[in-house]
């Protein structure tokens, strides 16, 4: 079953990647699983790198160092911004 993110997005996730359907535009995008995690954050956290970093760090159980996490967040934000999901 697809994962429903809010009322706008539907996501199918596999180990090697994910696809997202945007109900607003009817477009489908391939995105990486970390970007899906990022989209699961509350909207306020998606636009606040410090909050995003703290929340995703907690979800990942503190296994990832802060620099790697911050870099992944920047990449996810950029990926989602480029396809106009943010």
């Amino acid at each position, binding site marked *: 079953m*697809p994962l429903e993110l809010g009322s706008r997005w*539907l996501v*199918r996730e*596999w180990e*090697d*990647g*994910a*696809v997202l*359907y945007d*109900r607003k535009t*009817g477009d*489908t995008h*391939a*995105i990486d699983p970390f970007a899906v995690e990022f989209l699961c954050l509350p909207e306020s956290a998606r636009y606040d790198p410090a909050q995003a970093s703290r929340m995703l760090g907690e979800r990942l159980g503190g296994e990832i160092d802060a620099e790697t996490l911050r870099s992944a967040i920047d990449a996810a934000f950029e990926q989602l911004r480029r396809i106009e999901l943010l």
Partner: protein
Amino acid sequence: MTQTLRVGDLSRDELRHRLHGAGLSLRSGPLVFEIRSREPEIAENLPRLYADTPLGNAAFADFHVEVRRARGLRGWLKPQVEFLIDDRSPFQPLPRPQSFAMLEWGMNWCVANHCHQYLVIHAAVIERKGFAAILPAPPGSGKSTLCAALIHAGWRLCSDELTVLDPADGTVVALARPVSLKNASIEVIGAFAPQALFGSEVPDTKKGRVSHLKPPTDSVENVGTRAKPRWVIFPQWQAGAALEIGAQPKSHAFIQLAENAFNYSMLGETGFELLGRVIDASDCLSLRYSRLDEAIAWFNCLADEAAR
């Protein structure tokens, strides 16, 4: 019990009478085409390539199509034919010797552009032991050649061009129509399957030299049997290459199928959910090959493993 009347049961005169008059109604899976034409190429190839195909009920057809001589001065100097659906022509005319190929391409166009109760993908699809392998691939990848070889090695032809998926249950809807082969593939399959029956060969089409291959009788007789998608395989023929299999990321396979679909966008969320189910149920693989016998042995192993 009434016996199903098939195209091959009609006499030449009866076939011509129907083609010239009210139309020859033939059933391709769930679809009925009513075909009219006075072109000799069509009267010649239809009974050969559709011999096993059941006739439709004359009272109803999904598509009313015709291939006829194009009008105009150019057509008088160099005869051309045009394809019509409901008396409208969606394409430019083609040289008259291509009339049967034009009928086939036009019938594909009808399915791709009108059957929005299904998701229709530009991909070959074959079945064995209830499981379907979907083969999306660009022209020149050897998709139709591989498909033609497999259907003469125990696999059932669903379609060499159009993968038709039913959103209601995610199964493959078979059409079992002739396989279009081009250029050297005609000789390759002629040598691989000497029993295979070809239609007339047409040189100089936009796709090169083209001939259509009759679908195996078993495939036509079992056209109503649905198949479950089990593999999405991206084939690539390469001269001299050793058989090479690679895993394809599922998200990549999903996007490839969506991009190769004619009506994915039109189906919206339904298309997304359907393709998601297909990809969930499928191993997604790339296949590079040069030898048909090696590729077929590999396909057979897949089917054996899936059936265990």
